[in-house]
């Protein structure tokens, strides 16, 4: 079961949305990284939102995994926004110096979408003009 399970990636206009609702294993992280890069390549997305509302903890391993995904996406011209982090987990992250630096965070999914929209004003063909200078 574990081997066939995948974290779904949803495309909404220019944005890819991923919601992580289970404990991340090596296998899932590897798969997710690969799937996200493929989706970015395939869809011309300009933003990636990772919804973390389902996380039970954010340890250094998970933090690194998410930071890696953010870095890979940035290399491909896509900005990553994390959202819906449980407030207590956020406090723990900061208290323990684990916050994923260099990645934007938003209170919830709406805020994350608004943020990305404000950064990437759609061009005439509906694609982002800003994409090239990220």
């Amino acid at each position, binding site marked *: 079961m574990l081997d066939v399970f995948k974290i779904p990636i949803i495309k909404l206009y220019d944005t890819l949305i991923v919601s992580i609702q289970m404990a991340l294993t090596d296998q899932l992280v590897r798969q997710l990284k690969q799937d996200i890069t493929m989706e970015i390549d395939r869809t011309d997305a300009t933003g990636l939102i990772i919804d973390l509302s389902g996380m039970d*903890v954010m340890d*250094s391993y998970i933090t690194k995994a998410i930071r890696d995904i953010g870095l890979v996406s940035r290399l491909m011209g896509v900005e990553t926004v994390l959202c819906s982090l449980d407030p207590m987990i956020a406090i723990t992250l900061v208290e*323990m110096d684990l916050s994923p630096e260099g990645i934007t965070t938003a209170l919830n999914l709406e805020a994350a979408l608004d943020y990305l929209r404000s950064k990437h004003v759609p061009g005439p063909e509906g694609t982002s003009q800003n994409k090239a200078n990220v």
Partner: protein
Amino acid sequence: MSEITAKAATILKQYMSPILTDPIMEAAVLRSGVDPDNIRMGDGSRLVRVLKQSCKLFVRNSRDYAKCCKDLDVLLTEAMAGSSVDSTVVTIKEERDIVVARATGRDMCEEIGFPISVRIGVATVISELARNIHQYAKTGNIVLSLMKGERGGIEVFAVDDGPGIPFIEEVLSGRYKSKTGLGQGLLVVKKMMDEFEVSSALGEGTKIRVRKYLDARR
């Protein structure tokens, strides 16, 4: 059925139709993953939490629901006070055991009364230690114990027979550059806990004992 599940069923019967209590109990046992014949540390609070969720729809009104929840909490406290076992071992053999270890620790923290922020912190600590075992020693044990004496709290003891950490001084001073991760794991563990003890040498495995006390909340 074990004593705690029987007692919980009796409580439920006071607040809802008795026809419903058995199926609700069974479903709660299943959903919480608790073995009623072998209730271990952390199981009680998990069971009670699931029970509260599932009986919400069936209890007559919200006042009864509040009472029912209170009765269940009392039951849990009594069961805890009477239990002689106060530690549990989670063997780390595969990746998913890491999740089991931290979930168990988190529930134990709830039982002994840590606030939610500390529970998450301790769960994170357990996750770091368990992952290190999985990554570097392949297998080992996480022993979780509640300290109930004068100074209440939780102890996490991580033991393995792996290669050991000869450069432990570097790791703890933050000078170590990790090849496999952020190199933050043990620093986080040390920072989060009130007591931190490590004994590790090349080829001798690694033993890490950490404690968090109720009266030293941050």
